[in-house]
């Protein structure tokens, strides 16, 4: 049960399911190693970790290797986010920007530093339209589907989120931009297994094979120098 610092020039990611967002300590209440352990038990092999500094690979057994990759899920005012993206203050990090408004999204989709978009469920309805979908597909920028709001909300709020995600999935069926599926887990009980993710995504119009492909294609979405590591 050890950790191994990866080569900074390459990203070594085990093949398998990827979780697009976990929030380890200090923002969450779970340490990186514990997150990696739980993710490994549940069947994940890689995850984007919000707030960590460097890439780390944790090996718990021959079959259980989990890579945590540093990512920044930016939030706040559009001007501040644009400033961070243009300056690219923290290198070796994947930046995800919120879907705030249409003009902002179109601007961000032209930025090479942007890896993906998140918080789609909180955005105005016209923030991510077909033009944005086409641009995201051309530039290989992913859109994050967080299952956390599906879990944490009830009643009309969840109905609204399911409807919004349904619209996104309809756009995805047409334009095939990259999708991410994340648990946004800040704690061990918040982690959901790939099977649970698949069954929850069934609610928003993604069938089993589509969700499976999306979660397995997670390593391919990362940068060109990503090295996919075959598990024994």
């Amino acid at each position: 049960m050890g950790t191994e610092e990866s080569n900074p020039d390459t990203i070594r990611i085990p093949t398998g399911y990827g979780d697009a967002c976990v929030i380890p300590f200090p923002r969450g209440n779970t340490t990186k190693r514990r997150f990696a352990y739980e993710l490994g038990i549940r069947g994940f092999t890689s995850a984007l970790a919000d707030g960590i500094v460097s890439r780390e690979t944790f090996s718990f057994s021959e079959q259980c290797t989990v890579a945590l990759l540093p990512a920044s899920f930016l939030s706040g005012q559009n001007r501040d986010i644009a400033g961070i993206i243009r300056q690219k203050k923290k290198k070796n990090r994947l930046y995800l920007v919120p879907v705030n408004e249409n003009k902002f999204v179109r601007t961000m989709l032209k930025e090479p530093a942007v890896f993906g978009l998140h918080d789609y469920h909180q955005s105005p309805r016209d923030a991510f339209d077909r033009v944005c979908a086409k641009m995201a597909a051309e530039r290989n920028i992913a859109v994050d589907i967080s299952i956390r709001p599906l879990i944490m909300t009830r009643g009309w709020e969840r109905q609204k989120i399911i409807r919004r995600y349904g619209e996104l999935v309809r756009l995805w069926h047409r334009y095939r931009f990259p999708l991410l599926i994340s648990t946004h887990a800040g704690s061990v009980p918040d982690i959901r297994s790939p099977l649970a993710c698949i069954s929850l995504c069934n609610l928003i119009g993604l069938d089993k094979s589509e969700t499976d492909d999306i979660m397995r294609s997670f390593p391919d979405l990362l940068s060109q120098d990503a090295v996919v590591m075959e598990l024994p």
Partner: protein
Amino acid sequence: MRWFRPTMRDNYRYILAEAVPWNVTLDPKEVYFTISDAITSLFGDAGAASIACVVPYSVGRYVCFRCTRGCEDKVITGLATVHHHAGKPIGFHSVLVSGTIKTIKETVERRMRCSDRYKSYVIDNETEQSGNGNGMQYSDTRNRKNGNEEEKSYKRAYPTFLTRDDTEEYHDE
């Protein structure tokens, strides 16, 4: 008196789920109300009636759910939407779907025999520790007794999840 002939009865499937964190205490009746609430919220009353989910068996952190055949995916979806139980955060992970409860019991016995390694590696602190919102001070406060004045001054307590290696690293620092 049996109401239906065997060929007319509903077919059932049994779903084994494990709860996280491992030190949570589960009362089958309360678990039934939790899952019933989650399924009703997600699929409505008519959907919940057709799923007919009950809790026939529970031991430790393992719970067995019974539902009508063909509704296993709906129960797994409902389980995924459970985030609190008896006022505490919890997660249910489906482990096995079986046609008989015997297989479920055998699997539970096998998994409980193997769970010592897991318990010896992880530390789930639900109630014994308290924190001041400063994260890793939990390891420091863990050994303090309740009468300590410093611990009394901490305003809120919430769970922490770490591994043995994390505590060792922390103490090495």
